[in-house]
């Protein structure tokens, strides 16, 4: 049984107990514990069930690589699934629930899958549930989803806050072990701006646990002294609980700081995502121990030898009382020695190497530990905890052998450098035959903008197994990264010599299928040696395909333990070399990061910028029903008590057409185009001629992209000989300004033209209706606004009611209309004075829907309704707005192509339902016959459709094949419910075709 020892534990405070709950059971740990060490101290060896077979699972590792011990942490608004107990620091009141079992962890019905395991091999789902087809969606998938899956999704809104932080550094060092610390020291002395991040709460990595001596001091003392030296350097920033999550192009990196996970009662952002720009990056990310593949290697109590040692040294927790260590390398002996020193019984060290010798082996032998060389574990025995191991010769099939009783097994299959961050941005790996691992290939680093490598590697991450070599590589990495020599003297290291490991991928070598089907590679996803071998037999040669077929390495741990073992087994099955098989792709983040951290501050009130016009507050006060238009919020309508949207829109339109309406048009894009070449530039931007426009006049125009498609429209006012004011659609303002600058800066850099986006400088109000002029006259104008002085499509500066204004006689409603721009800061006051003065004409503010209906009644197009990026002006009958005289404009050449200049294109017409109703939006116009997929043929579609309060019936516009030539023809449309509606093709202009109302 696992238990706490009276002595030991360098990271815990024995004087301070911490209460927590696991599956509702009250437990006690110590300050400094991880949840993993606290659970082990309480003999909670069973912590979860596996994904597929629901096998009992215990803690395997002591860090980020843990595959099994995932729990749901917290509750309600602070619940989070799939948290690794090994990286969860214990705090008072912590609540954890184990996952993937029903009804309880101890008694799980899903474990029946375990007994059916031989019917559930790799690819089982693919093969079994393929027929009959509809069953997948309706029967198989729901059942599989119910039985699979790990943690539960949180149901409540997250109670915590999160944030981002941008840092720009010369050198980012990821990993705060001795290599990372040494690198920070050396780069710090060079005066570089250094950021050193460490994912755990403690500096120094494995060195203190491994008993390394540095410069005549213990590792702990050396670390303390080094931190003190670093603390004095203002150019070095140290950050614990901050994991290097990803490395991206051009030195961009993400680090994930868990600010309050260990102290959730502190009022602070829970996680902080560091968005780092680093000129150079050093990964000193250490190495991860590999499991050994023997039958039953997943039984609780079997763990990594290094983890067993970590729990003893760091937390004073023993994984068991009688220990067996199985190792193919010398490092495993360290764990045996530590266990022995801690007073535990070490039953044996099982070493498949027949004749290994070395400092640590000798030390173990002289400590009286039984060493069994050339021997393997034939199988681990036990159910919810390990009870013993059966041993056999490594070179055998494991059928015979003695059983050694034990309650914990430490296994070591060698170490794999953590190459993830090196690999994220394209760093390549080489196979290190001697250590049987992939390590970074310094000749093929990730490249930056300048073609130079920007990631360098130090320490165990570079494949170094000794402290001395790690420190040396740290110095070399700094020198290479900064291009400056490093002169500091390294501390003298006292550590044992390590012998060669034996690449043992299956234990014993000739294990039969029954055993291979119990050798776990990927603990979390339940992938065994037999599954990978099956995949190979079925023809999966690529490691990427095998991964997807078997799900090897696809769990939340991303194969940190299984990767190398899995591909070694695959290589063996394919009779190929490991480097020829290669690895799967390492993708960020290194371990899962919270969704909250990714969102950062962007939630609640600051989820997105919400753009408000100067008159916004008035709209709110007057009950506006808003709709989003880009990031703007615009009133859709202003419902009064008892009114629905439809009634409000009808009232607003009738009031406007009958007397006087008011629209907040401030969101319209406004761009100034000025310069000696402004006319020439405008002629290129617009399809029609703009250079001939006279100052004081306005002209409607169309803008196309270079592919000829209609992109934006609006009214242009010529302010003076050199200056145009371009009105764009609300959504087009930024885009059109960027479009202009793109052409000016990249193509027509010789044009003397300046542009400026002045959209937000003005509040703009449309005063619309038969009484519009009367209202302005009542307010008082210093300028004549009569039809003679200011005719339709003219503009003038004026002082209206004391406001400095620019008045445009333009109309999007077909009514007498003045669009009036005043400085934004006066917009609200101006609006209020219009409302007040307009009371006698029942002045009625109207929203975007009223605007849309009125423009549709007049047959005016709307960008985004009548256009969708595939429509050209000619489709919309706007040929009159396309200059035939101009030599060129953007889109001209494209519009001459055969498929554009084609009589078969769908063209815009009006539609009226025979029953007078409103046609469904987007309805298709049906043509006889079916297409190859058995669907109705179509010959057009509805682009805009509304109820017209003016005409008291439905009106619509549609793009229809040869539409303008088919006036009066009745066509059939889909009604969206399987039926059809009949409608007659008509003119797009439903109201006042002569334009008499606007021209007064």
């Amino acid at each position, binding site marked *: 049984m696992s238990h706490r020892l009276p002595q030991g534990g360098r990271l815990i405070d024995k004087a301070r107990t911490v209460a927590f709950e696991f599956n509702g059971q009250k437990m006690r740990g110590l300050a400094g514990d991880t949840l993993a060490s606290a659970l082990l101290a309480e003999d909670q060896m069973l912590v979860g069930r596996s994904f597929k077979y629901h096998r009992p699972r215990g803690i395997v590792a002591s860090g980020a690589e843990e595959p099994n011990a995932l729990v749901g942490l917290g509750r309600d608004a602070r619940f989070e699934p799939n948290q690794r107990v090994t990286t969860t620091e214990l705090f008072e009141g912590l609540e954890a629930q184990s996952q993937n079992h029903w009804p309880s962890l101890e008694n799980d019905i899903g474990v029946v899958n375990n007994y059916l395991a031989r019917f559930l091999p790799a690819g089982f789902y693919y093969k079994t549930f393929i027929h009959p087809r509809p069953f997948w969606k309706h029967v198989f998938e729901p059942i599989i989803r119910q039985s699979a899956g790990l943690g539960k999704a949180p149901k409540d809104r997250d109670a915590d806050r999160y944030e981002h932080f*941008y840092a720009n550094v010369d050198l980012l060092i990821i990993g705060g072990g001795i290599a990372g610390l040494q690198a920070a020291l050396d780069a710090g002395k060079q005066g570089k701006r250094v950021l050193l991040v460490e994912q755990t709460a403690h500096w120094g990595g494995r060195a203190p646990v491994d008993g390394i001596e540095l410069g005549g001091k213990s590792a702990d003392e050396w670390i303390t002294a080094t931190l003190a030296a670093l603390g004095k350097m203002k150019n070095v920033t140290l950050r614990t609980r901050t994991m290097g999550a990803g490395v991206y192009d051009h030195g961009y990196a993400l680090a994930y700081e868990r600010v309050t996970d260990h102290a959730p009662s*502190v009022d602070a952002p829970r996680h902080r995502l560091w968005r780092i*720009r680093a000129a150079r990056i050093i990964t000193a990310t250490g190495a991860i121990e590999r499991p050994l593949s023997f039958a039953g290697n997943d039984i609780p109590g079997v763990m990594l030898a290094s983890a067993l040692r970590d729990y003893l040294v760091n937390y004073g927790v023993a994984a068991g009382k009688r220990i067996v260590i199985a190792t193919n390398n010398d490092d495993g002996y360290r764990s045996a020695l530590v266990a022995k020193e801690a007073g535990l019984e070490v039953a044996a060290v099982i070493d498949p190497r027949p004749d290994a010798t070395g400092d640590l082996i000798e030390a173990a032998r002289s400590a009286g530990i039984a060493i069994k060389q050339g021997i393997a574990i034939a199988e681990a025995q036990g159910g919810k905890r390990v009870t013993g191991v059966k041993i056999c010769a490594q070179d055998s099939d494991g059928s015979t052998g003695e059983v050694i009783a034990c309650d914990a097994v430490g296994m070591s299959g060698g170490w794999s450098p953590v190459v993830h961050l090196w690999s994220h941005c394209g760093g390549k790996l080489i196979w290190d035959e001697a250590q049987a691992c992939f390590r970074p290939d310094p000749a093929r680093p990730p490249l930056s903008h300048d073609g130079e490598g920007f990631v360098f590697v130090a320490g165990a991450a570079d494949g170094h197994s000794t402290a001395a070599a790690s420190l040396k590589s740290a110095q070399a990495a700094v020198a290479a990264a900064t291009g400056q020599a490093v002169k500091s003297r390294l501390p003298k290291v006292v550590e044992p010599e390590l012998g060669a490991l034996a690449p043992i991928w299956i234990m014993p070598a000739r294990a039969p299928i029954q055993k291979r089907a119990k050798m776990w590679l990927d603990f979390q996803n339940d992938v065994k040696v037999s599954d990978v071998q099956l995949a190979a037999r079925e023809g999966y040669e690529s490691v990427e395909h095998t991964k997807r077929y078997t799900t090897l390495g696809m769990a939340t741990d991303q194969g940190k333990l299984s990767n190398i073992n899995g591909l070694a087994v695959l290589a063996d099955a394919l009779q190929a070399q490991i480097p020829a098989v290669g690895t799967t792709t390492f993708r960020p983040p290194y371990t899962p990061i919270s969704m909250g951290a990714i969102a950062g501050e962007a939630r609640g009130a600051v989820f997105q910028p919400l753009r408000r016009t100067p008159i916004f507050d008035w709209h709110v006060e007057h009950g506006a029903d808003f709709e989003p238009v880009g990031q703007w919020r615009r009133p859709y309508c202003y419902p009064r008590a008892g009114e629905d949207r439809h009634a409000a829109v009808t009232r607003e339109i009738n009031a406007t057409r009958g007397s006087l309406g008011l629209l907040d048009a401030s969101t319209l894009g406004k761009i100034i185009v000025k310069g000696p070449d402004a006319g020439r530039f405008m002629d290129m931007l617009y399809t029609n001629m703009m250079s001939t426009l006279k100052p004081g006049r306005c002209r409607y125009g169309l803008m196309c992209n270079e592919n000829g498609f209609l992109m934006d429209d609006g009214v242009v006012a010529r302010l003076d000989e050199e200056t145009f004011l371009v009105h764009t659609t609300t959504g087009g303002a930024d885009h059109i300004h960027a479009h202009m600058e793109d052409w000016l800066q990249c193509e027509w850099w010789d044009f003397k033209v300046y542009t400026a986006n002045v959209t937000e400088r003005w509040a703009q109000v449309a005063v619309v209706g038969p009484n519009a002029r009367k209202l302005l006259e009542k307010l008082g104008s210093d300028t004549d606004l009569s039809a003679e002085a200011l005719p339709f499509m003219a503009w003038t500066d004026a002082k209206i009611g004391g406001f400095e204004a620019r008045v445009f006689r333009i109309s999007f409603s077909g009514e007498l209309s003045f669009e009036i721009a005043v400085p934004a800061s006066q917009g609200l006051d101006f609006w209020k004075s219009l409302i007040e003065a307009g009371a006698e004409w029942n002045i009625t503010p109207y929203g975007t829907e009223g605007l849309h209906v009125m423009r549709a009644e007049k047959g005016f197009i709307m960008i985004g309704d009548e256009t969708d990026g595939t429509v050209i002006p000619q489709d919309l009958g706007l040929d009159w707005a396309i200059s035939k005289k101009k030599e060129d404009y953007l889109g001209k050449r494209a519009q001459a192509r055969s498929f554009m200049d084609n009589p078969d294109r769908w063209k815009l017409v009006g539609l009226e339902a025979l029953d007078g109703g409103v046609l469904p939006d987007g309805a298709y116009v049906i043509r006889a016959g079916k297409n190859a997929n058995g669907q109705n043929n179509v010959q057009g579609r509805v682009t805009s459709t509304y109820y017209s309060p003016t005409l008291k019936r439905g009106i619509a516009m549609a793009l229809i094949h040869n539409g303008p030539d088919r006036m009066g023809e009745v066509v059939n449309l889909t009604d969206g419910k399987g039926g059809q509606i009949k409608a007659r093709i008509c003119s797009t202009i439903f109201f006042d075709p002569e334009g008499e109302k606007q021209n007064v």
Partner: protein
Amino acid sequence: MSDLSTLTPYVSVSELPLQGMITLRADLSQKTVATAVKAITGLAMPAPRAILEKGAYGIAWMSHDEVMILCPYAECAAHVATLDKKLAKLHHLALDMSDARAVFEITAPTAGALRDCLAKLMPTDFHPDSLGVGELRRSRVAQAAAAVWLTDPKTAQLFAFRSVKQYVHDLLRVSGAKGGEVGYF
């Protein structure tokens, strides 16, 4: 955390009254331009990324062909007219942009806290070696465009578009809320 009222600030944020701002686009190397600008502000043409101030006037380098002139709000129209007159023979664009923007002043208890607060929202390099007092940076604040400069080590001014001023104000309150001290700068 969608309720801003639960946050306690460690930096203070206030919106400043209307600031006169004139956008001037022209060939900045022309002596005529420098002279015209100096006549209004009393200041020389700033170096790239710099902002110069003198009393109620200032001038900020915005790009290779653009500066922003700061002046009292009420004087804007007159200064634009002056510029148009003095630069009549030169290709230029002078516009009163005062109403298009909002200006915030951000004051922190320490120089580091100020930079920390801003560095949570802006990808700008706020290290003192990269952004000193008197240097203006055009960038973004979370999802909105913004320009920022430090008027003194503990005070910054941030310019944003008027339509998003509530968003920007809220962002700064979130970023400057107690508990969020980063301690980086």
